């Protein structure tokens, strides 16, 4: 007769000790797991690993550009590095890390025991890892993608009817196949989120009561589902052009290079919101908890996220104002871009109202969340400048755009990711991260990012184009570039501080208890870290702050609040 002890990975029989199965060993458990929490952590660690890889690529870029006429990298290598920096950060850092948070936190927030399709979840993760390694392996044979993360045809074609330099080697193939693999991974992940959110919510957790992070993950998932096919189609057509003799993007044979741009940005612009919406969600979770107030204007924040989702499919050609579209089309895309700025502005005001008149506890997660608002605002304002089409003719494809995307994706998403890690680290491990070192990490990062990215606005205004491997010394760009390079090093120091803090806290961190932040949502209404089954009993939800209701029954939201 065999008896099995729960929590111990051995099976005891009456006759002796059976050999452990592979899936019961430490390594085997990680490899074979279908648990959303373990997969979430694996997503996070993988994403962070690629963040370091992409960061090294960024440091190489900044080393090359620190001084004029830089000789650190050859132009061929530089072009591979800047392409892979963008590709790595977008496809291998931001999306996996955000999916990691989603995987870990969403089922817990909703009061579910796992994701809807646990095995598909594991499949999605392993495909991501495969795709990431596949893409980076291109460096081993010196043929990393070199066409920019936007991979414009016809530069990304194999050859064309005319003698010019395109991409005769495998560089572009790595990118096209790699993003297709990652696309499949994201599609499985998104389907899983959609079904989990629609079907596995705890009793009483209506859509209208879901935490805002789950809302934003839901919108992100729909965006991925509808946007990715466009990229996959574009990539497959380009692969056909490259290897099967078709001419989709070759003008000499009736194709059109602009077809690539339309297809790519039909994916690429929703993609930008895919990268930022879950960050909005993280911020909307952290601000209320550390202000001791509910989120201000839940309905407006949730529906402005949905509005951004819809509008994000109508703005793609604002990446293409310089390609010579008819004036009427440019006016249309200027208008849709104006519209999408409105829900974004609404969110910022709601966040301000959330902390206003609160009781603000400035722990590290809150510091990063507040830093997010301060920096994302800059990314919003310079983004609005880019929507002014005639001005855009001057600053598109200049360093001004580089400043814009980094204020949005580093000042925005990356700060939100750090906020999320500091916030949920106790949930993942049962230990607190060092708050003092965390604050150092914040201020160093804050200084570094402004020193790196603010001068880029000025470089753009002074006429410096982007994607250049070097620049001459006599054009007045030297000091600004040196500043940016020093800033990048400071960001690097910040990342090292974070890693030290992470590893140190993992080993020696203070025990956090189950609910260190006195939080409001269900993921804290269980042990930290949670058991495999998440909740012993599935909680019953009566308002948007179920755990707050449970802890403060006399002030419970369901007694007083009308939910719009």
């Amino acid at each position: 007769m065999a008896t099995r002890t729960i929590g111990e990975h051995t099976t005891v029989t009456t006759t002796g000790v059976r050999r452990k199965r592979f899936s019961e060993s430490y390594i085997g458990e990680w490899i074979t797991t279908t648990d959303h929490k373990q997969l979430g952590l694996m997503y996070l660690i993988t994403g962070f690993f690629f963040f370091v890889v992409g960061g090294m690529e960024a440091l190489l870029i900044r080393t090359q550009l620190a001084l004029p006429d830089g000789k650190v990298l050859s132009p061929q290598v530089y072009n591979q590095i800047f392409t892979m920096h963008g590709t790595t950060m977008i496809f291998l850092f931001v999306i996996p890390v955000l999916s990691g948070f989603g995987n870990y936190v969403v089922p817990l927030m909703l009061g579910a025991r796992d994701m809807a399709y646990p095995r598909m979840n594991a499949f999605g993760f392993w495909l991501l890892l495969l795709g990431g390694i596949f893409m980076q392996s291109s460096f081993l044979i010196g043929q990393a993608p070199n066409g920019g993360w936007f991979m414009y045809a016809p530069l990304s074609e194999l050859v064309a009817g005319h003698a010019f330099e395109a991409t005769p080697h495998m560089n572009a193939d790595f990118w096209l196949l790699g993003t297709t693999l990652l696309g499949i991974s994201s599609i499985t992940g998104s389907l899983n989120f959609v079904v989990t959110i629609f079907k596995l919510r705890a009793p009483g957790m209506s859509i209208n009561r879901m935490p805002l992070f789950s809302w934003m993950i839901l919108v992100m998932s729909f965006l991925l589902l509808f946007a990715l096919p466009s990229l996959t189609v574009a990539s497959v057509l380009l692969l056909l052009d490259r290897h099967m003799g078709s001419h989709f993007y070759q003008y000499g044979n009736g194709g059109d290079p602009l077809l690539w741009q339309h297809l790519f940005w039909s994916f690429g612009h929703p993609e930008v919101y895919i990268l930022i919406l879950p960050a909005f969600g993280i911020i909307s979770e952290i601000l209320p908890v550390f202000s001791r107030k509910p989120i201000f204007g839940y309905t407006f924040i949730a529906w402005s996220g949905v509005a951004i989702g819809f509008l994000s499919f109508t703005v793609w050609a604002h990446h293409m104002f310089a390609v010579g579209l008819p004036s009427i089309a440019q006016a249309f895309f200027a208008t849709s871009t104006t519209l999408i700025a409105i829900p974004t502005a609404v969110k910022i005001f709601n966040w301000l109202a959330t902390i206003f008149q609160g009781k603000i506890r400035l722990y590290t997660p809150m510091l990063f969340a507040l830093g997010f608002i301060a920096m994302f605002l800059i990314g919003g304002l310079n983004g609005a400048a880019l929507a002014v089409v005639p001005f855009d003719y001057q600053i598109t494809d200049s360093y001004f755009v580089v400043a814009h995307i980094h204020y949005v994706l580093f000042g925005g998403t990356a700060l939100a990711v750090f906020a999320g890690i500091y916030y949920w680290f106790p949930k993942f491990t049962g230990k607190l991260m060092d708050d003092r070192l965390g604050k150092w990490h914040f201020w160093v990062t804050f200084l570094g990012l402004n020193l790196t990215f603010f001068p880029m606005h000025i470089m753009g205004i002074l006429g410096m184009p982007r994607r250049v491997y070097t620049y001459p010394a006599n054009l007045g760009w030297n000091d600004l570039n040196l500043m940016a390079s020093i800033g990048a090093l400071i960001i690097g120091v910040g990342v090292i501080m974070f890693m030290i803090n992470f590893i140190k806290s993992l080993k020696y961190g203070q025990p956090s208890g189950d609910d260190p932040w006195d939080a409001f949502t269900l993921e804290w209404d269980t042990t930290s870290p949670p058991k495999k089954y998440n909740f012993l009993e599935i909680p019953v939800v009566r308002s948007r702050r179920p755990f707050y209701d449970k802890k403060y029954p006399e002030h419970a939201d369901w007694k007083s609040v009308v939910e719009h």
Partner: protein
Amino acid sequence: MRMPVFPRTKRWIALLGCLPLFSILFAACGENSPSILNTAGPVAASESGLFWIILWISVVIFILVEGILIFSIARYRERPGMPNPFQRHGNMTLELIWTVIPTLVLFVILFFTIRGLLQVAPENEPAPTAAQPRIEVTAIGHQWWWEFHYPNYNVTTADTLEVPVNATIHVNLFSNNVIHSFWVPALTGKTDLVPGHENKKWFVAEKEGTYLGICAEYCGTQHANMRFNVKVVSSDAFKSWMSTQQQAAVSPTDSLAQKGQELFKNQCASCHGIVGVNVKQYYDTQKECTDAPGGKANGTPECQLGPNLTHFGSRSLIAGGVLDNNADKCNPNNPNLLQECNLAKWLKDPQGVKPGNDMAIGELTNDQIQQLVAYLEGLK
């Protein structure tokens, strides 16, 4: 006891002190830059003029939002004995206010956007008048240099676009390879050269001078070194320049340059045209080559891959804008020719000056370089 609004005053003073730092940087860095704010014509002035409107609106919003943020953090930071805040969930009136106000501001900006967009659109190019004639130019993007063809004058040149002041310059944008982008920050914003698309743009230069042009769309290995000059001259100077350009290249008289000419015929003429050396009807053939699709491809025997060098000595930039054509240092008798003359450096080691470019020249001896420099710099 009432709490002070800002418990730590000194910090805010330090923060405020940092703000002027950036404006100083702004002023100090821009002197020799192709800044979009030093405009020399109405198109760029209209485009860049919007910068100040957006900047001021942004500064107001920035101060407002960051002000509320910093005030809230300072004022509502947890202090001992602070009671729990009132649990406010939202306020419909406030929500409407901060939805409507940004909407209004954004639509004011949108008004300027669309008005400015139409002002500089190709369809609103001013009609030619006696005071403001129209000059047509075709800008051809190569990897990685610019070719300029004046169809009404049958003149082709490279690296420097020479135009008269106060004329409407109509630019046809043409590429038969990858996508490039035509950008002269002082004169006009960007329009891409998309293969298969007949993009056009126009600009007017109101001040004489030389303005830097830049390829702004990533176009391969040497995207960073694809610059050109726009040289704006008086109407008379333009006419005399043009009449020189329309003449065939002069035959060299001194023996050094004659040797250089022979060398050129053997080593360079398969890629570079010099009208008067090549027997081919250069302009007609080249026009056919660039009139793809359907035309002959660049690189086929009739079509020349490199720039036409007929009046090379009169140009201000060489090698796709990487080097100045410093003719004063290029006297063939200069003992330091190889160190000082940019053309000599370029001929000696084109791959070192501009790695990855298509210049397929064999190793030249110092004597040969001297001969070629004498010949090419003599082509005024």
